[in-house]
C-alpha cells in the first residue's frame, strides 16, 4: 500500500530526485560503470540523502536489490555489536546475482567512535564484495579514516521553488485544492526540509478542505508543541520549577530529543525577538546560553540536565 505521502512520493529513480542535480549526475555514472566506491552523503535532514541512496541501490543492483542490500539506522543500532554482528554477517555472504552487495548506514554521525573504528575495518576487509553508503548530518563527526575511504557528497538544502513544485505535483496527484501562498508558507516553515514539508502538506490536506494560509497556520500551530512556548514563558517570568516540570514532560513523555528541543527553543525566542516581545540584549544573552547548551549536548553531555541548566539562565 501507499503509506504516508513521504513514502508514497519518495522518488524511486535517481533522475526523479529533486534538487542535488550535480550529485545525481555523478551517481548515475556509477550505475553505468557497474561499480562504485564507498560513498558518504552528508547534509541536513530532508534533502534527499536516504532517497538518493535507495534509488542508487535499486539502479545499481537491479532486480536483486533486496537480497543484496542491508539498511541500518546507526542512531538506533549504534553499538559496536551491531557493526560486528549484523554488518559482518551480511558482508560475509557472497553477492547473489550482482557483482557486489551494498550496506546503507544512515545517521552514522550518531555512532560511537569505537563503532566507527570497527566499521572502518569491515569496510577494508570486504572492499571487493561490499560497497558502503554512509549518510550523516555532520561529516565532522565521522572519524578521518572513514572519511578518507569514501567519496563524500555534500547535499545542500533544496531550493524553495523546487520544494514548491514538488508539493504542487503531489497536490495534483492527490486531487485537492490549495492556494499557492499556503504552499509557499509550508516551505518557509519547513526550512528546506522536504520530509517535513510533505508531512505538513498531508496534515493540512487531511482536513479535507482547500488549503488556505489560514487553515495552514491552524495546522502548524496544532502540530507545534505548545509546551515549549509555555515553558519559556514560565522560565522568563521566574517560575523555574514550573518550567522545569514542563521540560521534563516534553522530553520524558513525548520523547523529544535534545537537539529538537534546542531547535524549538531557538525558534521560539527568535519569534519573540521578532515580535518585539523581547529586547535584543536579552535575546543575545539567551542565544549565547543556547549556543553553549547546543555545543555541550553534541559533546556528549546529558541533554535533559543541560536544558534544565539553560532554563535557569532564562530566569
Amino acid at each position, binding site marked *: 500500500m501507499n503509506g504516508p505521502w513521504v513514502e508514497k512520493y519518495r522518488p524511486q529513480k535517481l533522475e526523479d530526485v529533486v534538487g542535488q542535480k550535480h550529485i545525481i549526475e555523478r551517481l548515475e555514472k556509477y550505475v553505468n560503470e557497474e561499480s562504485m566506491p564507498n560513498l558518504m552523503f552528508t547534509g541536513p535532514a530532508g534533502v534527499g540523502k536516504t532517497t538518493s541512496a535507495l534509488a542508487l541501490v535499486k539502479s545499481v543492483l537491479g532486480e536483486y536489490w533486496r537480497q543484496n542490500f542491508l539498511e541500518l539506522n546507526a542512531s538506533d543500532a549504534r553499538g559496536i555489536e551491531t557493526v560486528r554482528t549484523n554488518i559482518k554477517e551480511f558482508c560475509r555472504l557472497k553477492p547473489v546475482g550482482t557483482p557486489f552487495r551494498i550496506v546503507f548506514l*544512515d545517521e552514522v554521525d550518531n555512532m560511537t567512535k569505537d563503532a566507527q573504528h570497527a566499521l572502518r575495518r569491515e569496510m577494508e576487509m570486504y572492499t571487493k564484495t561490499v560497497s558502503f553508503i554512509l549518510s550523516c548530518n555532520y561529516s565532522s563527526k565521522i572519524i578521518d579514516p572513514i572519511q578518507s575511504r569514501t567519496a563524500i557528497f555534500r547535499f545542500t538544502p533544496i531550493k524553495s521553488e523546487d520544494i514548491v513544485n514538488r508539493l504542487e505535483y503531489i497536490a495534483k496527484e492527490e486531487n485537492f485544492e490549495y492556494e499557492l501562498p499556503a504552499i509557499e508558507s509550508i516551505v518557509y516553515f519547513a526550512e528546506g526540509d522536504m520530509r517535513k514539508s510533505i508531512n505538513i502538506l498531508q496534515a493540512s490536506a487531511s482536513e479535507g478542505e482547500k488549503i488556505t494560509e489560514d487553515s495552514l497556520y491552524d495546522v502548524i500551530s496544532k*502540530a507545534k508543541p505548545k509546551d515549549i512556548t509555555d515553558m519559556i514563558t514560565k522560565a522568563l517570568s521566574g517560575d523555574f520549577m514550573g518550567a522545569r516540570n514542563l521540560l521534563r514532560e516534553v522530553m520524558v513523555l513525548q520523547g523529544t530529543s535534545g537537539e529538537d528541543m534546542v531547535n524549538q527553543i531557538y525558534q521560539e525566542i527568535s519569534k519573540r525577538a521578532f515580535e518585539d516581545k523581547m529586547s535584543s540584549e536579552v535575546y543575545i544573552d539567551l542565544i549565547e546560553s543556547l549556543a553553549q547548551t547546543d555545543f555541550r549536548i553534541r559533546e*556528549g553531555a546529558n541533554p535533559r540536565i543541560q536544558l534544565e541548566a539553560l532554563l535557569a539562565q532564562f530566569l
Partner: protein
Amino acid sequence: MLWTEKYRPKSFKEVIGNAKQKKQVEEWVEQWQNNEPQPCLLLIGPAGTGKTSLAHIIAKEFSEYIELNASDKRSYDIIMNTIGESSSTQSLFGNSHKLIILDEIDGIHGTDDRGGTRAIGKIIKESKHPMIMMANDFYSKRLTSIKPKCLVIKINKVHTNSMNALLRKIAHTEGIQTDPEAIKALAKQSNGDMRSAINTLQVVVGSANRLTLEDLNHINKKDPRSTIFDGVGRVLKSKTFKNIKEAMRLEEDPTLVMEYIAENIPREYEKKHEIKKAYQMISKADLYFGRARSSRNYTYWRYASDFMGLGVSLAKDETYKKFTKMTGSMAFSLMGKSRGKRALRDRIAEKMSEKLHISQSIAISMFSQLEIIFQNDTMAYEIADYIGLDDEEIKRFRKKKIPKKVITAMEKKKAEIRKQKKENRNANIADNLFNPTNNKTKNKPSEEKGKKEEKKEINEEVKPTNENKEKQKKTNKNKTTEKNKGQRSLFDVDKKKNPEKKETPVRDKGQTSLFNF
C-alpha cells in the same frame, strides 16, 4: 555492661533534649492515670534520640506492659494473638492499665509481616489500654493510615551541646581521662544519635581509660557513607569547604548525586541568580561526566564532583535557615511512571523507522503531524496499514477506532489492486511465453524503457505463484546456454545508452523468479 543500657535515662528528668515533647508525654501519662483514655501515642524521630527510653520510662508508670519490636515477626495473626486479645480486656484489679509498646512500626515488612499494619489499625481503634508506638521515618508509607489516628510527637535530634554534656558526665563517672576537644568531636560526628555516641565512647576508651582525638580518628564515624540525602543537604545548606568535600564522599553513582543536587536546587535556593549560578555549575559537572564517559578518562570525575558540590554550594549568597525536605529526582520518578507510555511510543517509532527509512528520533518528531493526519479516516487506515500499527498503537494518534466502513472499503480496494496486478502479470507471462516474436518486435529503444519499468514494479510487488514459476523455469532451461549473458543484463536495466545490449524481457523475467522464492 553496655553503657547505653547503664546510662539509659530512668526518669523524664534524665532524658536530655526535646523538652516540649517530654512535657506532652508526661501530660499524656497523667491523663491515663486519671482514667481519661487518650489516643495512641506515636513517637517519630531518628535513631538514638531517646524514643525507646521514653517508652520504658512511661512503662514504669503503669503496672504492666507488653512490647513487640522489629525482631519479632509481626504479621496480622501474631499481633492479634499477642496484643489484640489483651488490648480489649480490662484488668481484674480495677484501675491499673496495661501499656502496649510497639517499636519500629515503620519497619513492618510488606510480605513477611502480612497484614501487620492492618492489625495495628484495628488495635488502635479497639484498645482500651494506653498504647505507644515508635517509628523513624516520618514520611514512611506504612504510617499514612496510622498517623491520623494517633497523637504524633516528633522527637528531634539531640543537640550537640547537650550530647557534649552527657558524654562528659559519663566519662567522669567512669573515671576516664578525656580531651575536651575529643568529646566535642565525638558529640558532633555522632550527628544527634546518642546511642551511637555512647557506644563509640565505650569502644574507643576500651581498656586504656582515656579518650584523645587520635583515638577517635581510628574509629570512623558511625557510618562512613553518609546517605545521598545527607550529602545533598550539606551541599545546599553549607558553604564551608571541608564540610562540602566530606559530603561529596558518597559511595553512590556520582551522576545520580548530581541529579539529586540539581533536583533540590530550586527547592532550597530562592533567589534567581543563585539558581542560575548553581545550575551553571551542574551543567559543567554534567559536561565533565560526559567527557569522562566518552574518553574513558575517569579522573575528570573529580572536577565534576567539585562543580556540583562546592560550585553549587557557593552559588548562594548566604545559607538559608529553613527546613527543606530533600527529594529524589522527579525526572526519574516521571520515567518510572511513564514506562508504559514510553514503551508504546518506542514500539511505534521502531515500526516507522523500518518502513519509512528514518531514525526513531525522526519518527517521534513526526508524531505531532501524524496526530493531525490520523483524524482523516482514510489516511489513518493507509498509514496504519503500511506501517503495521495495531489498535493500541493507532489509539496513540486518534481517540476513536477507524470506522469499520472505512476499513472494509479500503480492504476491498486493496484486494482489487492486487487482483489487477496479478492479472496483468499473468497476461504478460502468457504473452511472453506464447509470443516471443512479438516481443522482439517490441524491443525498440523508445518502448523498452516503459516496458521494463512496469515489469520491475510487478516483480517488487507480487511474488510469482508456483504455477508461474514452473513455466518460467521451463523457459529458463530452454535457454541455459545464454545464461551468462542473461545475468549481465540485469545490471543494465536502467541503461539507456546501449539498449542493443539488453536481453529480451523474457529473460529478465525468468531469471528473477529463480531468485525470488
